[in-house]
């Protein structure tokens, strides 16, 4: 997952590291405050206050613990290269700008001990920057545990991104975590969609509520919620037909669904391989019908990782899951710290 981005980040990390290393190894001219100067010639006086550094300590600080200060000029080229790297990986411009700003903030003007590993300085700056941009993620299990049941989750998104499969995968994930789940077959538009979700539900052993093809999705999902309430089910997963945000009639249908089933969470589903297009579409969907969290499918096919890195920062909504394959358990909760560690691991 995101192998290309990882490789590029490691190259950028080395470039930043060598820029700082060049500063660190440059000859340091001691200023008058730290130079031994005249006092070096005077025999050392025992001081009453232990805080006053002795001559020997001063020399040690200068030679062993001297600090380096990174200036903008030292890292300008490396940061510009990092910017290109991120843009080439389809990381959205606002997210790229934010990462560069955080890395710059993490590096510039900071007094660094010479003894400190340059690589660790760079990795820390990158880690902090990426974590800032990725946000906190979204812990669905925690959300369900802390909200009144049934928790109603409505899945929206454009056509062909794997929404129905995602509903099934999340159903299997929640069942495995001990929650009871019911699925509403709200995609009454696409031929075979009801059958498809029906087969999924049967395979994972989850109850499904379905009407005839062409029926009113609001009615299906209303019935699903009623079923969940009367059977004390923990979670309602509502599938819907794929639609583009500029199709007014389909978007007003989604509005109706929202009014009728009153979802606790609206989850936008798109594919990671769509890169920046996925970010743009998520933004438009959020503007039109709202979204509380995002799921990106086909992340295993995505070498660039642009959408995953930028979506939370760009639309201000957390990434909840990443779809990583064909099997039901090929879905992983999006944990920013884990993703960042994976991106930055190795390469030192």
């Amino acid at each position, binding site marked *: 997952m995101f192998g*290309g981005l990882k490789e590029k980040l490691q190259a950028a990390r080395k470039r930043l590291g060598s820029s700082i290393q060049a500063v660190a190894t440059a000859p340091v001219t001691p200023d008058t405050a730290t130079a031994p100067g005249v006092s070096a010639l005077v025999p050392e006086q025992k001081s009453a206050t232990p805080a006053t550094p002795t001559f020997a300590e001063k020399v040690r600080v200068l030679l062993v613990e001297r600090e380096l200060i990174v200036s903008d000029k030292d890292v300008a080229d490396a940061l510009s290269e990092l910017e*290109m790297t991120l*843009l080439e990986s389809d990381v959205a411009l606002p997210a790229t700008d934010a990462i560069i700003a955080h890395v710059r903030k993490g590096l510039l003007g900071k007094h660094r001990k010479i003894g400190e590993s340059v690589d660790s300085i760079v990795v820390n700056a990158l880690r902090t920057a990426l974590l800032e941009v990725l946000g906190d993620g979204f812990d669905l299990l925690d959300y369900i545990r802390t909200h009144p049941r049934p928790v109603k989750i409505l899945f929206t998104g454009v056509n062909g991104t794997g929404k129905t499969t995602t509903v099934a995968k999340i159903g299997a994930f929640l069942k495995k975590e001990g929650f009871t789940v019911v699925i509403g077959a709200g995609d009454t538009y696409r031929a075979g969609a009801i059958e498809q979700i029906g*087969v999924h539900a049967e395979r994972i052993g989850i109850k499904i509520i379905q009407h005839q093809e062409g029926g009113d999705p609001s009615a299906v999902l209303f019935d699903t919620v009623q079923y969940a309430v009367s059977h004390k089910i923990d979670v309602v997963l509502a599938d819907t037909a794929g639609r583009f945000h500029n199709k007014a009639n389909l978007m007003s249908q989604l509005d109706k669904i929202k009014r009728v089933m009153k979802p606790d969470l609206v989850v936008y589903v798109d594919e990671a391989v769509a*890169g920046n297009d996925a970010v743009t579409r998520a933004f438009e969907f959020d503007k039109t019908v709202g979204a509380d969290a995002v799921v990106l499918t086909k992340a295993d*096919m995505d070498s660039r990782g642009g959408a995953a890195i930028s979506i939370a920062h760009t639309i201000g909504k957390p990434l909840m899951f990443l779809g990583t394959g064909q099997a039901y358990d090929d879905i992983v909760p999006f944990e920013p710290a884990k993703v960042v560690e994976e991106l930055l691991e190795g390469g030192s």
Partner: protein
Amino acid sequence: MTTTTQPMDQRELMTLQHYMKEYGQQAEIFVSQLDMLENGRMEALAAIDALQGMVASDDGTVLLQIGGGASVRAKILEPEKILIAIGAEVIVERSNKEAVDFLKERIMEMEASQKKVAETLDRLRAQMNEINKRLESGYQQSMAEQDQD
């Protein structure tokens, strides 16, 4: 999926048919992704040819296709200044060589993606073959039962 000699009921046959349909739809999506990647790769290769041709041309004159099989002779004012979309809807100016290098890198990325998609497609087709075998044996069993009746 394991093949079994147990008799298959109609319900199981229907489920297998659903699986086949679903896998077929998924395979279609992967095939269209492969097509998209191949189109992108071919486009990038054509762009590399054009960029290299521009530099090779003595006076910077190239044939510019304007659709419908029609072309005009066009003179490139600045063959060394290439505007290239690098991703995230950002366009930057690069030298001709840098643009060619960038496109070559993109081609490598696309080829890697193609390989991954093709592997997934192969796995999917293998599963479909298994289901198909199971379906055929089910049909044969049903036919044999009908003959006995």
